[in-house]
């Protein structure tokens, strides 16, 4: 016999993500899912972001990595509460991991929770964790062809950070074509050009983020 199901393969994750989203809304905390390749500069960008925002809003961070607490230690030095999740080989964070991590956070005392996902342009885009919006970091040295090669993550994100923009003169990265590809994939996406060594775009980016938490 044939049983018709039409059941979402990720429904188990999506159900927990919906619980997380409800929980965050009740606690009035905005959650950003920060994604990007390994080495794109997510953690450095996060350090720079925290430095600019900690005197304005209350922030905590969840760090996702396969192994080690290296990133959490870096975030801790900025004085922000941080929880490290080690996926031990897992390619992305899922909703259940976030639910568990949030048990050790006082959400009522937060305006913004930033989740730095495992470095990967594929899987994190598919797994809802209950966030308000996704952000994707694409560094100049990764190449301008990445948006069309990994379309879903750019399609799903509210904002793209073209990071390490100071390295542009040393590469064949075509900024115009990268911006066009990101926009055709996602016409409403916001794009920032940032450099954490030179400081380009960081004030604009953090101002945008600040406005998102005021909603």
């Amino acid at each position, binding site marked *: 016999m044939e*049983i*018709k*199901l*039409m*059941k979402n393969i990720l429904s*188990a994750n999506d159900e927990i993500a919906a619980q997380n989203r409800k929980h965050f809304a009740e606690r009035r905390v905005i959650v950003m899912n920060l994604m990007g390749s390994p080495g794109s500069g997510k953690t450095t960008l996060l350090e720079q972001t925290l430095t600019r925002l900690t005197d304005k809003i209350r922030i905590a961070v969840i760090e996702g990595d396969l192994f080690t607490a290296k990133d959490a230690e870096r975030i801790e030095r900025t004085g922000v509460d941080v929880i490290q999740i080690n996926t031990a080989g897992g390619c992305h964070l899922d909703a259940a991991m976030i639910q568990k991590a949030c048990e050790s956070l006082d959400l009522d005392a937060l305006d913004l929770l930033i989740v730095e996902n495992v470095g990967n342009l594929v899987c994190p885009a*598919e797994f809802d964790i209950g966030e308000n919006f996704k952000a994707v970091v694409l560094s100049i040295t990764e190449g301008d062809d990445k948006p069309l090669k990994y379309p879903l993550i750019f*399609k799903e994100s509210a904002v793209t950070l073209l990071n390490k923009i100071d390295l542009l003169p040393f590469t064949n990265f075509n900024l115009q074509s990268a911006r066009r590809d990101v926009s*055709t994939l996602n*016409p409403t996406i916001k794009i920032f050009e940032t450099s954490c060594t030179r400081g380009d775009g960081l004030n604009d980016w953090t101002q945008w983020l600040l406005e998102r938490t005021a909603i």
Partner: protein
Amino acid sequence: MHEATLAENILDIAIDAARQNHAAKIFKVGLKLGELSGVEVEALTLSFDVLKKNTPADAAQLVINRVPCRATCNKCGKNFRLERYNFFCPDCDGILILQSGRELLVDYVDCE
């Protein structure tokens, strides 16, 4: 991506459905996978074939249907098959809203 996780979920859904319908053996599991879902079919089949051993789905085959990306313009309302993931309407200045192509579904289970 995480094909092993997907295979595990597919197997759970199929075995659950078979059990609820008092079926002991699963022959086929039909999937609908959108073009934009990023699933590597070979890796998914391999993971499924490893995980299905010693379950009611021991002899089950995955039947995979790819679903193309289609989108509707938020201004003129026309429906398009998406080329090169361009979400600007080719006919007006509207934006295309995705209607299909993100499916990750267990469509049906064939069992007895």
